[in-house]
Structures are given as C-alpha cells and as structure tokens.
C-alpha cells in the first residue's frame, strides 16, 4: 500500500518541480536545505481531495462585466478618433445653413412686369369673365338681401 502512494507522490512531485520557474530553480540550487524544502512542498502539495471549481454563474457575471467595459472602451476610442472629422463637418454644415439663410430672394426686374397692353387675348377674356361673375354674384346677394328684408 505504502509503495503505491509513494510512487504517486513522487511522480506528482517531479511534475511540480518541472513547473517551477527558472528563477526560483536557480535561486534554490544554491541552498541544499531549500532544495529539500521544495521537494517536501511538492510532496505535500500533491495530496489534495480535489480541486474546487468556480461556480459557472460567478464566472459568467465577471466575464459579462469585463465584456461590457471593453465595449464601452471601444466605442469611446472610436468617438475620440472621429471627433475632429465630425466636428469639422458639423461646423461646415452650420456655416452653410447660416450663410444661405441670410440671402434674400432675387427681386423681379421691372421689365418682367406685364402691362395691361401686353396681356394676351385669352388672359383678357379670362379677366372679363371673372369680372362678370363677380358682378352677378353681387347682384344675387343683393336680391337675396332685399328678399329677406321683405
């Protein structure tokens, strides 16, 4: 029974020794008593009832928070990177709106106005008809008013 456990412990101790950092190995090589200390530590460290595992929900929460922080940093960096271009574009747009809004519409030239003598025949007839229509409307409304009075 003893030999099985010893063999297992020795194998695990050797594995642990290989995992030590080079710096520590160099440091310990000058101290024989510490070399024994390292072997003892490896031997004891190999005996454990099983590695405890992190609850998956806890890991998920931590990684989710880190992910949201990373996304925020990415967006902030993008915003900072393109801010000068966006600011220049907004400035140009504002200047353009301001500049064109101040301009007055062009005044019509005097020679564009038509005198009565220049009206075309159709336009003259259209004017005459509308004048007659208005006068008849007045006559109708007058008769209605006089009828009410009676």
């Amino acid at each position, binding site marked *: *029974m*003893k030999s099985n*456990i*010893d063999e*297992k412990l020795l194998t695990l101790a050797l594995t*642990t020794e290989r*995992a*030590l*950092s080079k*710096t*520590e190995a160099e*440091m310990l090589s000058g101290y024989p008593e*510490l070399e024994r*200390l390292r072997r*003892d*530590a490896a031997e*004891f*460290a190999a*005996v*454990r*009832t*099983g*590695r*405890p*595992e*992190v*609850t998956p929900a*806890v*890991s998920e*929460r*931590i*990684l989710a*928070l*880190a*992910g949201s*922080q*990373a*996304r925020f*940093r*990415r967006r902030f*960096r993008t915003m900072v990177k393109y801010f000068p271009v966006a600011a220049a574009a907004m400035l140009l747009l504002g200047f353009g709106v301001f500049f064109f809004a101040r301009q007055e519409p062009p005044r019509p030239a005097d020679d564009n106005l038509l005198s009565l003598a220049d009206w075309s025949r159709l336009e003259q007839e259209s004017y005459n008809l509308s004048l007659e229509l208005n006068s008849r409307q007045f006559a109708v409304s007058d008769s209605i008013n006089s009828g009410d009075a009676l």
Partner: protein
Amino acid sequence: MSDNILPEESDYELIKGYLAGDSASFDRLYERHHRQLYGYLCGLSTGNQSETDDLFQLTWLRVIEQLPRYNEQGYFKAWLFKISRNLLIDRLRRNRRQMFSLELDREDAPEIETPPGREPWRELDERELGDLMDRAIKLLPPDQREVFLLRRENVTFKEIAEIQQCPLNTALARMQYALKNLRSQLGSIDHGKLR
C-alpha cells in the same frame, strides 16, 4: 511538437489588449488565473462556499475597476492575490471573526513532537490522506497556511513575498515552519485521526 505554436502572451500584453477594447484578452487572462485564486480562497476562507464565491467575485470586480491603473511593475498574479487577501482581511474585520489573526508576522505555532522514525500517514489511502491534509492545513497559523496554500497553487516564492509584503527569506521560513508543522501533525495520527 509542432513548430507553429505561438508564444504565449504575457499577462501585461493581455491587459493592454483588454484596455484597448478586446474582451477576449480578459477572457484569456481570467482563464489563466481564476482556478488558482479560487483554490487559494477556498483554503484560506473559513466560511461557506457562497462566501468564497462572493469574495472571488469581488476580487475580480476590483481588478476590472483598477486595471487601467495597473503598471507592469511586479507580477499580475501577485497583484491579484494581494487584492483578494486585502478583501478577505477587510471582510473578517467587518465580521469581527477571530479565526484569521491579523498579526501575520508571528511564528508561534506550537510544535508537536513526532514519534521517531514513524510516518503513518503514508499508510492511509489517498482520500483519507487528503481529508487529513485539509484539516491539518486549517490548524496552521494564518501566515503559514497562506504561504502553503499559495505554494500549492504554484505561486513562486518571489510572488508570495510580494503578496505578503515580507522579505523572501521570511516567506521561505514560513513555508519551512508550515511543512514542519504539517509533518508533525500527520505524524501523530492515531487510527486515521489527528490528535
């Protein structure tokens, strides 16, 4: 062995990647260190698993918060374990528990004499030995227990000294005392029970 294996990124490179907005860098950093930290907290904390989970989560939240201020001086692992240790001490102070002594420099564990030439712990099966080992570890003084647990998680002595903020020789001495006490405790086994 394939020649196409890329060299592993350092912790600092992963941190820089994360601060540049790459969440996968943080995932790799977390994968690299989370088991060791959890094992350390399980061994050091004397509360139940939910309390260990809470401390573990709080440690990583603090790490995420303070990563922009992290500089390359020192090891990330030591920095991580230091944060965890400080949170544990704060919690114990708040809860006013006495099981974790705050006088971390005292070396006053009573030594039990080992019967000469006897190592009965080697005669137990692996599971019994593991159970006894866990109980014996909890009987160690806090500073020795901490050093042993950190060493069990393959933290180097240099990093342990940085975490405990003590000289390297002090960390080595604590480990030596821890092993001596463990060997004594396991040596005094009677029918599979610690005396």
